[in-house]
C-alpha cells in the first residue's frame, strides 16, 4: 500500500472566478483543481483507491470533499460533509442542473426534505440540518465493479 501524499495550498478566492467548461463529477482529474479554486481548500491529499485515486479536499471551515477517480482519471463519485455545503455547482458540473430540476423549491409545500436524485445515470443522496450537511453523488454507469456508495 502506497503512502498517501499531501501538499499545502494557498487559499484562493471563493467567488468571482470564471466557470470552467468541464466539471468534476464525470469530468477528468484536472477538474478537481477547478473545484479547489472555487472553495477555500486548506489541504489536498491524494491516496490510491482501487484502480484510481481518492482526492480529499480539506476545507477551511472544517468541511471535507472526497472525489474518487477511476483508472482513466474520471471522477465517478463525490462525498461531502461540513458546516456549509460546498460549491455543488462546481462539484456536480452538468449534473447540478439535474439536481436542481429534480428538487424544485415548490416541492416544499409537501415534504421538507434534503435534495436527492435517483436516475439511471446519476444518484444523489444528501441530508443534515442547518450548520451540518452531508451528501453523496455518484455515476452508476462509471463506478468500479463492486462499488458500495456507503463506503465512500
Amino acid at each position: 500500500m502506497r503512502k498517501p501524499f499531501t501538499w499545502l495550498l494557498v487559499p484562493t478566492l471563493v467567488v468571482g472566478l470564471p466557470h470552467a467548461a468541464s466539471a468534476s463529477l464525470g469530468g477528468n482529474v484536472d477538474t478537481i483543481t477547478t473545484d479547489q479554486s472555487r472553495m477555500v481548500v486548506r489541504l489536498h491529499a491524494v491516496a490510491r483507491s482501487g484502480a484510481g485515486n481518492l482526492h480529499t479536499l480539506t476545507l477551511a471551515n472544517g468541511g471535507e470533499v472526497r472525489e474518487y477517480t477511476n483508472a482513466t482519471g474520471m471522477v465517478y463519485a463525490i462525498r461531502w460533509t461540513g458546516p456549509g455545503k460546498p460549491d455543488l455547482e462546481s462539484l456536480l458540473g452538468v449534473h447540478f442542473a439535474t439536481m436542481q430540476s429534480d428538487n424544485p423549491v415548490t416541492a416544499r409545500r409537501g415534504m421538507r426534505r434534503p435534495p436527492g436524485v435517483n436516475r439511471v445515470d446519476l444518484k444523489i443522496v444528501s441530508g443534515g440540518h442547518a450548520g451540518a450537511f452531508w451528501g453523496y453523488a455518484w455515476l452508476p454507469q462509471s463506478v468500479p465493479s463492486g462499488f458500495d456508495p456507503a463506503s465512500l
Partner: protein
Amino acid sequence: MRQILATIALLLLTACSGGTSGAANTSSGGTTSGSSSSTTTSSGGTTTPVTNTTPIVVDAGPAALNVGANAYTATNIPYVTITVCAPGSTSNCQTIDHVLLDTGSVGLRLEASVLNSTLLAGMATQTDTQGNPIGECYEYVDNYVFGSVRSADFTVAGESVASMPLQVIGDTTGGLGTVPHSCSSSGGSNMNTVQLLGANGIIGVGTTVTDCGQTCTTTNGSGGAIYYDCPTAGCSAVVSRANNASAPYEQLINPVAGFASDNNGTILSLPTVAPTGVVTATGTLYFGIGTQTDNALGSATVLPTTADGYVTATYNGTALPSSFLDSGSNYYYFVDSSITACTQSGYTGFYCPSSALSLTPTIKGTSGSAISAAFTLYNAYTEPGATSNAVPGVGANPNTQSFSSPINNSFDFGLPFFFGRNVYTAIAGRQAGSAYGPYFAY
C-alpha cells in the same frame, strides 16, 4: 370527526388560558407533563407572572401560502408570534405572526415582504469595515435564504434582546438584488417569499449561540452562513464576522441566547394529536430550562449532542449517527425499504403501511444510555384528515426518489415526534438544569 377534534382543541385552549393575567401566559392545550405552573411566588408572598412562555400554533400557515398556482396549506409547521422594533423605538414596531419555530437552525430571519417600510427603514443595516451593508446567505438542508443583516429590538413573551442582528430575506436594497454565486452554488433556491418559506419568517432556536461560529471569523470564512460585503455594485467578497456571544453582536445569534435570563434553551410543549390529525394544534414554547418554576428539566432524559447537533438513533439494529430532533422538519424522515411506499400521485416517498406500525427506534446522546423513541407510523395517504394541518405518525424517506437508498445514516425526528411531549433543546456551553448544552431532552 375532524371538526369535533378541532372544537375540542379550541375548548381546551380556551379553558386553559382563563384566569391568567400576563399577556404571555397562555397555557398549552392539553399537554400533561410537568409544566403547568404559570406563576412564581416572590419572597413577599405576592405573585409575579412568569413571562417566559408564548403560544405555539400548528395550523394552515399564513394566508399568503394559499394563493396562486402553487397554493397550499402548511402541514406540521409550528409557528410563534414575535415583535420587532427599530432599535430604541417603542412605536416603530411590528408584531409578526406565523414565524416558523425551528430547533434545527439558529437566528431570526423575516421576509422583507411582511415588514412595513417605516420599520424596514428604521432597522439599520449592519455595515462592514468599508461602510458597506452586510448581506447574508444561510443554508438549510433543501434551500437557502439571502438578504440583508439588520438590527432590531426583539421581543417575545416577556423576553427581549436589544439591537439584535436579524436577516431580512429578499431585501433587494442597494447591491443586495443579486444572489452571489457562492450562495446559489450550494443548490436549491432562495426562499424569498412567504409562500416559498412557508412562513412570514423563521426563528432558529437550535443548539448553538451564533449561526456560524468560529468559521465566519476569518476573511473568506463561511460555514452554514456566509456574510458578504455588499456595495451597490453587488455582494461578492466574503467578510469576517466576530463570533460574539454578547452585545454588540456581529453574527446572527440564537435569540434565546441573547435574553437577559431564561437564556439557556427552550422547551417545546405540544399536545397529543389523534392519528387523523387536527386543523389546529396549540402548545407552549417555554424559554429557559430550570430557570423558573415552569421549566424544570424534571425527569426528562438528557441526550448530549455532538457539536453538529447530532445524536445517534438506532433503528432496526442499525446505528444512525447523524440523527436529530427537529421541529422544522414536518415529518419523520428515515430509511426503511421494508415499509410499503405510497403510490398515489403527490405522495412519492411517503410511507403507506397497510395498517398502523409500531416502530421502536432508540436515541442515544454522546454520553448516557439509549432511550426509547418509539412511535406509531400511520398510512400517510389514508390516515390524515383532508383538513388536518397537524398530523402525527406520518413518515417519509428523506430521499424520496431513492426508496431503497444504500445510504442510511440519519433518523430525523420531525414535528410528529414533538406531539404529546415536552422536548428540551439546550444551547451549547450553557448550563441548563443539571447538564450543560448542547443537548436535547425529553
